[in-house]
């Protein structure tokens, strides 16, 4: 059962913030839903060894 807050939220206009694959934003956009797309990618382009080093180096 969804909570009352969630139900109330869905009764109003939805604006989605999309972080990740642009395809998700495109699908929502095609349905007429407002989408704000965040240009994000995983640290070090997903290279876990470099991401680990960078975390140790203070980024």
């Amino acid at each position, binding site marked *: 059962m969804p909570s009352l807050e969630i139900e109330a939220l869905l009764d109003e206009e939805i604006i989605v913030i999309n972080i990740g694959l642009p395809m998700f934003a495109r699908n929502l956009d095609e349905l007429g839903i407002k989408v704000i797309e965040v240009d994000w*990618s995983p*640290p*070090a*382009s997903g*290279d876990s060894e*470099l*991401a680990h*080093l*960078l975390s*140790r*180096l*203070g*980024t």
Partner: protein
Amino acid sequence: MDLIEKANDEGLRRMLAADPVLVDVVPAAKAIAALDDKRILLHAGPPIDWERMCGPMRGAVAGAAVFEGWVASLGDAEELAASGNMVLHPNHHFDAVGPMTGITTASMPVMVVENRAFGNCAYCTINEGLGKVMRFGGNDAEVIKRLRWLRDVLGPVMGVALRDTGGIALKGLVARGLAMGDEMHQRNVACSGLLLRALAPSLARTAADTSALAEVLAFIGGNDQFFLNIAMAMGKAMMDPVRNIDGCTVVTAMSRNGTDFGIRVSASGDDWFTAPVEMPQGLYFPGFSEADANPDMGDSTIVETIGLGGFAMGAAPAVAGFVGAGAASEAAGYTKMMAEITLRQNPEWTIPAMDYIGVPTGIDIRLVVDTGIAPTINTGIAHKEPGIGQVGAGIVRAPMKCFEDAVRAFAKSIGVA
């Protein structure tokens, strides 16, 4: 990490405290003693031998050997280079920089920029203009004739005039150029004009031969990119004092030789981190296409290293169209993106059209790798065959591998694994 933050603060302090002043023009051998020896030639980019050199750089090497009188013909020059009896070194190893092929030899005049805050000097040859020129691999009689005129007329006349001025301070001049639409890599119209305005009284006062003076004024006034080589020497003079700071992750040089792209990082001193150079994406002059283009080349990326060029694209929307980077309104986007990989804004070099934000300054190898955003470089495009010259202009990205290797080496050097 405290060590890195303090070291980077010091690196940025040195960059921002720099006081670059154009003080002289002298024969390269007078500025760089090593060139006094026979058959030593400096080139753009990280170290490279003759066998791996691209076409335009080979063309320029051959032309320079003829210019210096080491050999009588281009064919002889190629044989000399292939025999190993010509010594090739990067400009960067001798306090110098050079655009595109970047060839510097003993008798070529170099402009001298003194960083008066730190007492070091940097050198760059004089911009030859557009078309068939040695920096794009040109090497025929027309190219050699112009180089002789630069050596015998423009260099000495400009040197005397500069000494008469007591030096032309460059920081303020560049600040004005940014406000007038220059980014100092592919657009130097404003700064070339401002320089000539500052130099003209001394040129008039010191030139003994008025017909030579008229030629010099026409040459400088007719070359929109004349200031590029001065901006490059300025960049080198600003960045050299930032080298060798323990724990500093700031990039001190980016450079390409047409085969490899190389970067240097403060903490790792004179080491180069290299990767295959990429092909610029851009616009071509009529009659040429990407099929004619040589991969990216030149020491001119020193201007991006100090926050100009592609980093200051927002100051020069006209350049965005010239280099094929999209609409003028997109220019600011490049500057904002470069802010993601730099540590500060330069408060003395601001961009009026972007609410006076300072140009993005201090490329941090950690930020480049973390964000996956490679430095944007505005560049000229040379024909891949020697002797033809410039065929277009465009944008190129620094290869990410250089920065990844630099991060790994830096982490190892401070015991982080």
